């Protein structure tokens, strides 16, 4: 008989192998990085522009520009663009974030040359017609109205302006009226300012061959790049003077809670330690918040926390939806857990578990060329390379309960945290 009470032997992860990222340029100087790997004949190509929310002067401009680029170009209608890409089974997705705007092509390697002409049109010659703009705006308003009915959406939206302040580019809040103020002029100007190829980097992963680079050179490497250098924007954080916001929603069966603050980003020496501390608190299924609020009290389907790095700074958040009748109790328990990481050392066994868990997750996030490319880019964006992850691994292995307690005391003071509740208190 086997002894089922005893866990099998296991190994801590010692080193993680990274797939090489090759840094190169197209003929005209556009930065191109690629990671070759995997057994499938497929490619993921991201065109990353510094054209996220950070660069807009009013809400919605960055995301609307990003969305509307695909809706018709000088040569092709919106339908032709979609059909041209769909025809080859490819997918072309756009995404707008706080710092960057990305247009990503997923295609079988064999169809690359068939779809790139359409991608080129979208990147270089979008038309921004009044007709497509009106359709886009109308439908976006409908989606926004529906989202406003979701407590979690409202909490997430208002949280950012609470911690960064309405005037900070990361804190800009969107209201329904902003859609009416949006004009095609704003969008065209934003495109002209920010979507230069000189402001773009290309990230390729999958089965990358010499012919892949040659194709990209053919379509994008001959374009003249504008010499105009982009002005670096500065921003100061003037967080909302309220430390908490409560938005009542009648008949809500659950309340959405967000608690957090501005935090250091990847360039700061405390970043790794804070990631580890965050994992203990709410960063994985076995975290303290999950154990207490879900697995012990049953107040929620899920609770989590995260440390998000942005280009200029970062933020920390805890997020959950809890039964309306237990909103107050849940808040009490959340603050109890926050208090604990400031006042008591993390027990050795718990920390060991978290360390192994984090190393396992890092190993998983290096799995395959696509994952590896994301990992590469999320360091590259900050001017960092893979040594960033090696430092991360070392910090995970070596950090002590004492250091983590110091970080807890420094960064998790209740007086520095802001809170938003949408639902019922």
């Amino acid at each position, binding site marked *: 008989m086997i002894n089922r009470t005893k866990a099998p032997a296991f190994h801590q992860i010692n080193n993680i192998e990274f797939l090489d990222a090759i840094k190169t340029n197209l003929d005209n100087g556009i930065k191109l990085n690629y990671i070759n790997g995997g057994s499938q004949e497929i490619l993921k190509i991201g065109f990353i522009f510094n054209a996220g929310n950070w660069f807009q002067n009013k809400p919605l401009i960055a995301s609307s520009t990003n969305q509307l680029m*695909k809706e018709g170009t000088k040569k092709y209608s919106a339908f032709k663009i*979609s059909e041209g890409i769909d025809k080859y089974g490819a997918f072309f997705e756009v995404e707008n974030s706080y710092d960057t705007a990305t247009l990503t092509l997923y295609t079988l390697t064999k*169809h690359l040359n068939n779809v790139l002409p359409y991608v080129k049109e979208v990147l270089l010659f979008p038309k921004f017609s009044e007709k497509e703009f009106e*359709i886009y705006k109308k439908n976006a308003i409908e989606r926004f109205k529906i989202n406003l009915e979701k407590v979690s959406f409202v909490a997430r939206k208002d949280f950012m302006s609470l911690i960064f302040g309405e005037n900070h580019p990361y804190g800009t809040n969107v209201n329904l009226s902003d859609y009416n103020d949006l004009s095609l002029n704003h969008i065209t100007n934003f495109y002209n300012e920010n979507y230069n190829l000189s402001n773009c980097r290309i990230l390729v992963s999958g089965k990358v061959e010499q012919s892949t680079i040659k194709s990209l050179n053919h379509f994008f490497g001959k374009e003249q790049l504008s010499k105009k250098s982009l002005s670096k924007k500065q921003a100061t954080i003037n967080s909302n003077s309220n430390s908490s916001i409560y938005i009542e929603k009648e008949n809500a*069966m659950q309340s959405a809670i967000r608690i957090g603050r501005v935090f250091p980003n990847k360039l700061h020496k405390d970043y790794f330690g804070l990631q580890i501390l965050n994992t203990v608190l709410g960063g994985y299924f076995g975290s303290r918040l999950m154990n207490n609020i879900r697995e012990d*009290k049953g107040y929620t389907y899920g609770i989590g926390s995260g440390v998000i790095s942005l280009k200029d700074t970062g933020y920390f958040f805890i997020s959950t939806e809890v039964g309306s009748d237990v909103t107050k109790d849940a808040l009490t328990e959340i603050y109890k857990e926050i208090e604990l990481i400031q006042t008591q050392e993390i027990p050795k066994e718990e920390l060991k578990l978290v360390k192994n868990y984090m190393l396992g997750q890092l190993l998983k996030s290096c799995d395959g060329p696509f994952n590896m490319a994301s990992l590469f880019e999320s360091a590259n964006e900050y001017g960092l390379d893979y040594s960033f992850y090696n430092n991360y691994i070392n910090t995970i292995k070596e950090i002590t309960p004492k250091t983590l307690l110091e970080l807890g005391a420094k960064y998790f003071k209740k007086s520095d945290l802001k809170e938003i509740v949408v639902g019922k208190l």
Partner: protein
Amino acid sequence: MIHFEKFTLKNGLKVIFHKDESTPIVAFNLLYNVGARDEDEKQTGFAHLFEHLMFGGSINIPNFDEPLQKVGGTNNAFTSNDITNYYITLPKDNLETAFWLESDRMLSLAFTDKNLEVQRSVVIEEFKQNYLNQPYGDVWLLLRPLAYQNHPYKWATIGKEVSHIENATMDDVKTFFHKHYLPNNAILTIAGNVDIGDIKQLTKKWFGDIPSGNTPLRNLPKESKQTKERRLKVERDVPANAIYKAYHMCSKNHPDYHATDLLSDVLSLGKSSRLYISLIKEQKLFSEISAFISGSHDEGLLTINGKLLDGVSFKDAESSILKEVEAIKNELVNENELSKVKNKIESTTQFSETSVLNKAMNLSFAELLGDANNVNLEVEKYQEVTAEDIKRIANQVLNESNCSTLIYAKKENK
């Protein structure tokens, strides 16, 4: 092409192994052949509640998650109307931990009262979060019983109502476990850079001595053929009117399944699809429109749904959908349209096979439906679909006498 080996233990546990040398991660997927369709109508939501209880400690191991996290692994599970599926990914050197944990909870659970009480609350919060406290969240709670009158697909996996979850007892939990959680009612798939010899040895070591039981017989009431259109109108506190039209379609193993899937793709996959171009771009009647199949094992649904733009009447919206339906019934789709949706299937398949976990899951699902090797034949089956097939299926499926329509109206004077 996903190569694999397959063997069965004496107790009936089916094991599938796929070797992938390119990854340091191994996927461990355990599927139990039990879903919400196997529930008693007075105790719905039970298969899913039970899935939660599987994480509350087993007979020899008080906590499921901790030992796994300690070796760098992660896991989750989901329940559908057809199956309950548990999956783990972990560094390959620590694979044995997955065997140890999964086999112990197949052997027996700890069955603690505290676990039942807490997970009952957690699931009720899940019910609220995803179905009751969301705009349009209750759509399937309304549409399922309209479309299905006999078959247990008439209730959602989360359950018909919260009270069914509130009333579950420990006796129910035990009975359910002993009936369904048997080695001969499960399929284990492992994918990663390990050797078949090790897999055989580990499977035998950890699962070999778990006793088999009577394989539960599934004898579900068959849905009788719908002969008259069904309609339901509700009013809710939502910002936009919405319409849902659900048509009965074939089962997943039926030869027409792939053609039906492509029919829904021609209608609405991507921004060059028919419904998108006609109803959103040209006629500007909807803000969102989609057509999709449920993908269920037994006879499923092809659903067309959309959110109406302000000022558009339900009558105009619905007749615009019906006009597109008529068109696809009367004329063959053109070659470009058809090759487009087929190419999408090919690339989606290629992209999904970059993940060992996806591969492991798909092997398990295919095995349950008859043969794991069907994962390798899927693309071909889609390729074989003709324009005539699409037209034939459209005429067979997209009839109002075969349709349940839900009119989801916003409350006025809001």
